[in-house]
């Protein structure tokens, strides 16, 4: 009787389940090449849920088209699937340790989740008892993940998502945080807290509370609000029925209510955040380097030659007036008519406030005059004793120089 029931339930599922390698290849191709984003997402999920069976087709696609032809949606789907298996684990390790791969941080998140499952295998839950089924136990073992040793080389990676996911893995297996530098990127603080909450851990919640009052911007991009939304969603999910009734219009009151609920549920002493306001008043230009390889860099400047570094503009330097005036007069060199090159992951965004210019530049696509101007700016920073920052900028900007 049970077998009959199983056959009835399984038949429709099996009808859609790929039967051979050709069908997996087709799903991988769709996941990578469909012109419709939704279809790519659905195909990626199907491939990810296939576990080891789909790995050969993924590797064949990679070999034929290059690793960076794999979209982030496929890597994210494999990272997040609960089909924990040996071949996918090895696949993720290959991707996470490849510094040239755009989506290595997504692969690292997948490894962190697997490390957590290996270190703390889920208890067997009986569906018959009416309880929901938990995450499955991994069908493989991996000592370096289980101990957290695998994550050590990446916990201070220059790319914020990469180091955050490595720290996430370390935290899930309980590895000591010695050797981790102090995190200065507000995005990383919020993301790590959110990831840990989602996995049933209780990290210090203050970073999420701070984010609720964050209104900071970088060259007009409201990144603080985005952080606040991420923090609010994380707290909403975690507090569930205890999330307070909030109405729009009074942010302070809403923040206080959410904080009180978080404090009551966590037992942590939390403090009401001070609103952080937009930080780009007086800014006349700047650029952002978004790089999965070298890490993100943020630079903006005022008319008097004060240069701000970091997404939060927390670090500043003042350039010598004569050198700065010369640069300022030549700034039309970085004026571009439109976006340059095809951006897939890494990009350089150039902004000049007075002319309203905001363009994205793909690697190897920056016109020579703009490249030369940015080199002169970097040189001027170096002469102003910003040696380390200048070196980082050179490294980051180098990949955008036109070929």
């Amino acid at each position, binding site marked *: 009787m049970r077998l009959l029931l199983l056959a009835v339930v399984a038949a429709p599922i099996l009808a859609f389940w790929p039967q051979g390698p050709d069908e997996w290849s087709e799903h991988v191709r769709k996941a990578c090449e469909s012109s*419709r*984003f939704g279809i790519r997402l659905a*195909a990626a999920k199907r491939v990810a849920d296939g576990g080891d069976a789909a790995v050969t087709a993924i590797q064949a696609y990679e070999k034929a088209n290059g690793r960076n032809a794999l979209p982030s949606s496929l890597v994210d789907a494999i990272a997040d699937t609960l089909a924990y298996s040996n071949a996918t684990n090895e696949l993720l390790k290959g991707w996470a340790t490849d510094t040239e791969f755009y989506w290595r941080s997504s692969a690292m998140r997948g490894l962190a989740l697997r490390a957590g499952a290996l270190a703390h295998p889920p208890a067997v839950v009986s569906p018959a008892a009416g309880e929901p089924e938990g995450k499955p136990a991994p069908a493989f073992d991996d000592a370096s993940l289980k101990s957290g040793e695998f994550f050590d080389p990446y916990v201070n990676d220059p790319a914020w*998502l990469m180091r955050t996911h490595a720290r996430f893995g370390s935290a899930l297996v309980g590895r000591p945080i010695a050797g981790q530098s102090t995190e200065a990127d507000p995005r990383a603080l919020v993301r790590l807290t959110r990831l840990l909450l989602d996995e049933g851990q209780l990290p210090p919640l203050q970073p999420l509370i701070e984010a609720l009052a964050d209104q900071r911007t970088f060259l007009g*991009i409201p990144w603080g609000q985005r952080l606040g*939304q991420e923090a609010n969603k994380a707290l909403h999910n975690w507090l569930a029925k205890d999330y307070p009734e909030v109405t729009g219009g009074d942010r302070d009151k809403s923040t206080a209510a959410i904080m009180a609920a978080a404090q009551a549920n966590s037992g942590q002493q939390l403090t009401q955040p001070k609103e952080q306001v937009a930080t780009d008043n007086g800014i006349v230009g700047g650029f952002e380097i978004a790089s999965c390889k070298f890490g993100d860099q943020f630079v903006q400047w005022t008319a008097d030659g004060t240069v701000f570094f970091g997404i939060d503009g927390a670090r500043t330097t003042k350039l010598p007036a004569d050198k700065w005036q010369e640069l300022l007069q030549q700034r039309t060199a970085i004026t571009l008519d439109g976006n340059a090159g095809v951006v897939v992951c890494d990009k350089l965004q150039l902004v000049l406030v007075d002319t309203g210019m905001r363009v994205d530049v793909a690697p190897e696509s920056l016109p020579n005059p703009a490249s030369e101007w940015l080199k002169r700016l970097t040189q001027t920073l170096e002469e102003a004793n910003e040696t380390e920052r200048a070196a980082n900028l050179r490294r980051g900007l180098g990949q955008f120089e036109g070929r």
Partner: protein
Amino acid sequence: MLRLPSTLLLLLTTVFGHPATEPEPVGFPVLAGFAYKEGMTLPKEVTDLDEKVVQIRGFMRREFAGSGPVNSFMLINDACGCMGTPMMNEIVFCTLPDGVTMEVLTGVVTVTGKFYVGEQKEDGDVILIYAMDADTVTIA
């Protein structure tokens, strides 16, 4: 194919536009404020927006990496596309009027048009839950 700069798209409202009702401002905190699962009943605050003329701020992103003008695009809440793959309820699939294309703008944009809410499937897979007939796209 009619190709126009973004500012001129504003004028299209008079040609292609929907009734001159004041668009309702909608934010991603509402659209993306719940954990979406396929087949779920969407929150009332979201379904109430179906077929309304709304205004949403976000970032334009191509459905597929490339260059040149587009007739359709995704509106998302992530400036750089580097925060991870957006969830289904973090994307508004926008379509410009037939025959109209525009460059993908960088920075924050405001898109106005008729909004549609509900799972749309293709070959059994959900391919979107939010869609919009975009009448205007302006730099915010």
